[in-house]
């Protein structure tokens, strides 16, 4: 097929685009890296978050007036369930480590490991004294 060897000069429209892109790209990249851009974007995002918060607060008050839970209440519950789930996962890892220390010869079989949460043995999530070694 003609032109498939890669030596074909780019089409005129492509040359024009490349020239424009070469001119615009570095300038735009400089702009988005300025402190002013960071502050303006942060301000916009903060304003958006504040508006959402206000809207949620108003909606929550309305729902609470008729003794019903609002969306924010559900979110709080979801967060609490999430935190609980994390604690269970951490405890599971710690428990498995405990079991390991009591039965060092125990080995888990692959089938068990394929079950959700199965077979993990780990160092427990904890703070361990740092032991810097000499180089």
């Amino acid at each position: 097929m003609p032109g498939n060897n890669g030596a074909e000069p780019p089409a005129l429209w492509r040359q024009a685009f490349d020239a424009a892109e070469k001119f615009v790209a570095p300038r735009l990249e400089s702009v988005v890296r300025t402190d002013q851009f960071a502050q303006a974007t942060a301000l916009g995002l903060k304003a958006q978050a504040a508006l959402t918060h206000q809207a949620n607060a108003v909606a929550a008050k309305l729902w609470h007036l008729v003794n019903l839970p609002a969306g924010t209440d559900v979110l709080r519950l979801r967060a609490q369930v999430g935190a609980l789930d994390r604690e269970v996962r951490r405890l599971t890892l710690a428990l498995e480590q405990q079991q390991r220390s009591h039965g060092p010869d125990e080995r888990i079989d692959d089938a068990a490991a394929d079950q959700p949460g199965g077979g993990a043995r780990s160092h427990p999530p904890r703070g361990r004294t740092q032991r810097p070694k000499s180089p």
Partner: protein
Amino acid sequence: MAVLDRIRHEVERNALRARNGIKLATGTDRPGVGQAPKDVVWRSGRCELWHYRSDKATVSPPLLIVFSLISRSYILDLTPGNSFVERLVDAGFDVYLLDWGVPDERDAQNRLEDYVDGYLPAAITRVRELSGADQVNLLGYCFGGILTLLHAAHHPDSPLRSLTVLATPIDFRHMGPLGKIFAHGGLEIDAVLDSDGNVPPHVILQGFRSLTPTAEVTRYVNLWDKLWSDDYVAAYQAMTGWSTDHIPFPGAAARETVDMLLRQNGLLNDRLTIGGDQVHLADVRVPFLTVLAERDHIVPEPATGPLIDLVGSADKHELRLAAGHIGLVVGRTAAKTTIPTIIDFLLSRSEVTR
């Protein structure tokens, strides 16, 4: 005659463009990604440990790859023939990958210590159990590199034979507009959290897009220009699919990242706290390789360059490559330079068992 040839050539290309355009628009003929055969050998929550099947694993200890928290790990096994994992398996390594899955509201409270002190040690233990090896070679990519560094620093007794990190950010002053918005704009992470308590993928995507504001337009122009090429379209689908396919960043880990790694620049300034302990990169003593890409626009060279001087390993090496962030693991530079160099580094610190 030349004019007629040119017209015929353009007509042919436009016919191919139409065909490939329809394929793209309808989503048919998508290239398969992450196809290397593997088994899930351990899981906890959304986190899974994958073991890549191989009948030619001759190198010990096994290699455990730790991926980033904000994108999908199939970039390391993009397509058959263009797969970082496949090359490692072919080189005789027994390869495992720790995939974080897709976080949801249950992961919103996950802190960095959950990964560094919880999942990572559990995965290392499981790899040792399965392989029978006493140690593992650990490899971290991008944010996964940070997790592996923090783990190695916080657990000097961790059974690591070596540590390799790729495109791992250290000096967060150079991490582009998104970093500046938090560091200088005063934005708090809570302002961008989704209803599930995590940083949503679209915020992460916008952060990456802001690094190169014209790239989105250029991408479509390039696509139109080369839409006639089946190879280009296949590569475009695989790469673009991945680069727009982010996952939520657990809220608590994101908050720590902004406060400790970004605002305090903790990795560079030695102000790291994991699970209540002070952690120092100087406590990383295992044989160490850092690979950085000189054309990386996501983790630019100044962001990752200081790492080599911060770790305490006596046996430490830095590899600088003329590649981009993804080019370290995908494409020609990866195939010709990155992967062979990593393989050489690991082989020289491993044993070939048969």
